[in-house]
């Protein structure tokens, strides 16, 4: 079994007033193993992006613990430790139009991290590294001197990826990295993400609402609903054998490029049942977890 790279334990992220908080993430726990891709899916507002942002320390978490390589990331840290952490964990954002500074060339955007971390002081060495990164993501060395507006959406997302790779991280959080792109470009970017994962032994947290791409790219999938993980398991298992009614409903709504299936498609509506204190993640089958109370588990198991 691969090592645990990231452990999230009972993570809570509340916003708003302490008396009446908005519970964006409400006590979730999961692990990410080295070299794997964990897909995080759910509808808008379910807390999937907040989870990603809490892990990379964009928010101060309300409660819980996040361990990265065994170290608590939110514990007090020196500047040096923080820098080290930032090197290891990077993020790819959704909108390649908003995430690049329009006044910087691609080369400047990619090499910003070099200055912060004092790497590659020699000009020639620096240019060499920028060029290598651009080539790694399928662009040309010459692109380093161009500005963001000179690139198409797909190319911009490649620059975003090169920037995330610039400090040789081991863990990348990709927050809806392909939602803003056209279908044919989505496939290019997904292939690229898979290729660099293999080459550099990267671990991904892939956040998306598009279940078909998530299933394709992920080894395991976590389904979120209203701030909780309701189902977690290997992606084929989740897809072929969903147990939680929300997962079933979500899967029944994904249209496939197959008209004969679509003509007879029946959507399964989801009715949310409030759960009490006793609800937790149950390991229903090996490595397949479902959230609910004992009585819900019995009910859902019978229906299967």
């Amino acid at each position: 079994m691969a090592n645990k790279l990231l452990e999230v334990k009972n993570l809570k992220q509340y916003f708003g007033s302490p008396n009446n908080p908005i519970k964006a993430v409400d006590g979730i726990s999961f692990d990410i193993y080295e070299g794997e891709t964990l897909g995080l899916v759910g509808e808008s507002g379910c807390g999937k992006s907040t989870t990603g942002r809490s892990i990379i320390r964009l928010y101060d978490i309300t409660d819980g613990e996040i361990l990265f390589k065994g170290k608590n990331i939110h514990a007090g840290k020196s500047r040096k430790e923080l820098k080290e952490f930032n090197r290891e964990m990077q993020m790819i954002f959704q909108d390649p139009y908003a995430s690049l500074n329009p006044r910087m060339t691609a080369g400047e955007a990619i090499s910003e991290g070099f200055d912060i971390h004092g790497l590659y002081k020699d000009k020639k060495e620096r240019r060499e590294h920028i060029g290598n990164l651009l080539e790694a993501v399928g662009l040309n060395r010459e692109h380093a001197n161009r500005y963001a507006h000179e690139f198409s959406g797909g190319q911009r997302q490649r620059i975003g990826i090169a920037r995330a790779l610039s400090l040789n991280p081991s863990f990348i959080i990709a927050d809806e990295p392909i939602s803003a792109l056209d279908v044919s470009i989505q496939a290019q970017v997904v292939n690229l993400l898979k290729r660099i994962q293999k080459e550099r032994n990267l671990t991904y947290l892939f956040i998306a609402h598009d279940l078909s791409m998530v299933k394709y790219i992920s080894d395991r999938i976590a389904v979120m609903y209203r701030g909780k993980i309701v189902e977690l398991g290997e992606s084929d298992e989740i897809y072929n054998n969903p147990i939680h009614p929300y997962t079933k409903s979500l899967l029944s709504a994904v249209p496939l490029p197959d008209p004969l299936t679509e003509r007879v498609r029946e959507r399964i509506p989801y009715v949310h049942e409030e759960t009490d204190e006793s609800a937790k993640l149950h390991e229903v089958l090996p490595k397949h977890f479902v959230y609910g109370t004992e009585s819900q588990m019995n009910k859902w198991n019978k229906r299967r």
Partner: protein
Amino acid sequence: MTKKLLEVNDLKINFKTYAGVVQAVRGVSFELYEGETLAIVGESGSGKSVTSNAIMKLIPQPPGVYAGGQIVLEGRDLIPLSEKEMSKVRGNDIAMIFQDPMTALNPTMRVGRQITEVILKHKKISSSEAKDRALKLLELVGIPMPEKRFRQYPHEFSGGMRQRVVIAIALAADPKLLIADEPTTALDVTIQAQILELMKDIQKKSKTSIIFITHDLGVVANVADRVAVMYAGQIVEYGTVNDIFYNPKHPYTWGLLGSMPDLKNNVKEELRTIPGSPPDLIHPPQGDAFAPRNEFAMAIDYEMEPPMFQVSETHYAKTWLLHPDAPKIPIPEEIARRIEGYLKEEQDDGK
């Protein structure tokens, strides 16, 4: 035989910009019959939204120019109509549903008034009758407690509910043709499924024809009777939904199908992508616009534009590969396998 509602003939739309004239739509022709759904698919910049806006005559002039062709609705060409005549067509004959329900609604106006406004403009009825009709519409599009919702503002509605309001407004004056421009792209999948169900339901009841613009092939398979695939301002393949999904002929359609992961047959191989990016339409390439991205391109593709070849009675494709003298290029293996899987499953179910 159903009645032909709309016929678009060789439509050309240009935009004048500082950089030059952008030929956004370069000779698009299609027909639409009563009660059917035509899906137009393509990437951003392929001209699908410009085509639909052109039918509504919503192209701003300038910079837009109707450079040729006809848009014939029930025997009448819309292009020469004045703005005044056109405002009668809009809403009454053709209505539109937009992508983003938040920007399509007026945030300072109660939802009820936004619906009755349309009814009163197009129908000669009293305002209390209009209100009754609006309430019926809200019920029709599946909004619970219409009396209460009637008095609320758009911000009090969720995304899916807002899109239902937009649909209710579009249906207010019983249009014959509904143009839906990416109506579900901004919504979650579960909400998307509900809206698609709603649109199909309404179509069954009122025999409305729908032009559905989207880039999501799954959605196309769900809603469409016929499909037009657009690339670089032209329709490159045109046929029934089965033609396009089970017997695609154009390499661009192959590319679109191949770039979606195959969930059913559970293959984890690399996705087939379309290399490169779409052409610049200020200087459209000579010959077949798709040639530079086409791995099967032949010498002639760079010289002459291919005509529409007829594949079957319902199926057309614009590629030189269909010329009798062209080498026989079989459909790429991954896609062929996938289609086989879909069809086989259907057979197994049928037994």
